[in-house]
């Protein structure tokens, strides 16, 4: 014979509200719960990592934008400077170009000064109302009228006509003013020999 195998006898007073254990299959519930928690933590970690990467990219982009803006400002300043230089260069070029027809005149005036005289001051301005006319002002350190005559002759040899000449003599210096007109623009009847 075989006696039925049972649980050991128990004489203690039984509790009435003892509940049986839950079926083993329901262990899946806490297991799934813990898996969900772990998955959520992993996903949170991934999201935080991606967020950090995105923030870093935004910061890098902002930094690049600021750098580009600074480069634009620098380039604009350099361009402005270049434009100013170009303007000045253009002015210089204009002056050079504008003064080129006068260079033979100035050389002629300078060479006309003799050994006993000196050219203290020479000023040639274009007339604002008539740019083809030149206002000549010069101060020659001599009291000889011959020197002034040689100088005006030299100007005439350079195909300029002297109009409205004014001269004063004081303290051994001759102050001479006149309007110089190139012969190419002087009417025939107003030209003086």
């Amino acid at each position, binding site marked *: *014979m*075989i006696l039925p195998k049972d*649980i050991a*006898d128990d004489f*203690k007073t039984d509790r009435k509200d003892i509940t*049986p254990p839950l079926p083993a299959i329901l262990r899946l519930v806490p297991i799934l719960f813990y898996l969900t928690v772990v998955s959520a933590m992993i996903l949170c970690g991934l999201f935080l990592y991606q967020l950090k990467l995105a923030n870093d990219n935004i910061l890098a982009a902002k930094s690049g934008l600021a750098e580009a803006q600074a480069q634009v400002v620098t380039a604009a300043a350099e361009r402005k400077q270049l434009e100013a230089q170009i303007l000045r260069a253009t002015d210089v070029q204009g002056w050079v170009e504008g003064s080129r027809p006068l260079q033979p005149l100035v050389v002629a005036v300078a060479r006309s000064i003799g050994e006993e005289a000196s050219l203290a001051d020479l000023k040639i301005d274009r007339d604002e109302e008539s740019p083809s006319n030149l206002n000549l002002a010069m101060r020659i350190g001599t009291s000889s009228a011959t020197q002034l005559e040689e100088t005006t002759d030299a100007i005439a040899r350079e195909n300029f006509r002297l109009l409205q000449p004014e001269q004063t003599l004081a303290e051994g210096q001759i102050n001479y003013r006149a309007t110089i007109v190139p012969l190419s623009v002087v009417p025939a009847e107003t030209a003086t020999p």
Partner: protein
Amino acid sequence: MKGKDIADVLNFSAFRPEPDDPTATWRRRFPGIRTLMFGIGKQTLTLRPLEKNGRFGKTELHREVKDFKELLNISGAQMREASDGGWSAVSMHTRYVISLETNLSRRPGSEDMVKTNARTVLGGRFERGKKYSVTHNPETNSSILLTCDEEQVGRVETAFKETGFKLGRVCCGTYLLLKHALGLVNTTKGSEKPSSAFIIILCEGAVCALVQDQDKWIELRSRTDVYEPEDLAPALDLVSPFQSRIPTEMPVLIVADTLFPGLAEEVGKVFEGHTVQDYSQPDLLWNLILQN
């Protein structure tokens, strides 16, 4: 549903039996938890702590204990430190009777019903103030009946509760060892190969002897507080009268709560000509409480 229920599901304790669920084994109820095993005799109290790893700690044997309640009041707190939450199993070795009965009710579930409604199973043998447990012989009309004083159980429960212990099981060690021995003897299904044996149970001073002849339980004798571990002679004196009553070819089977060196030889001298088999093991009683 309360928060504790959710917590129990999440920490998997809801899938284990409750600690004081007597229908579950001790191992299933207390996995990885330190518990205490108490043996209560007439004047002795044995304490065997069970560690987390399932091994037993050092045995404490208290002798000359007039009242175990006083001892628990004095040393209970110190004893409780060896457990997690004070969960304990108590094996009673005094104030019980194991008897052989016949013609008890064999209705389905009667072995469970004897604990809740003993009168319907025991009929005229029922006594008020007693608790019962029964094991039926499936081949005959005889049954082994364990009778225990309800007052003694109540005293044990009250004393342990008042000193902060929690009782997971209150059982009778001798009865548990007897059922274990019957399981060792009766291993063949059906009645074609009937078994015979003279079973001697020794459990912390208590002795129980059962004669099984051709699957029939012939005679049972049970006494408590018979012997001391150092002197087994009174136990042998108690069983020696069976020598003249049992057939010579009937084997003698010894099951003791622990290992007694030389016991088989001593019994062999008393039961000369019989085959003596000693199935005792160290901590057998406590291991049976764990497994059942």
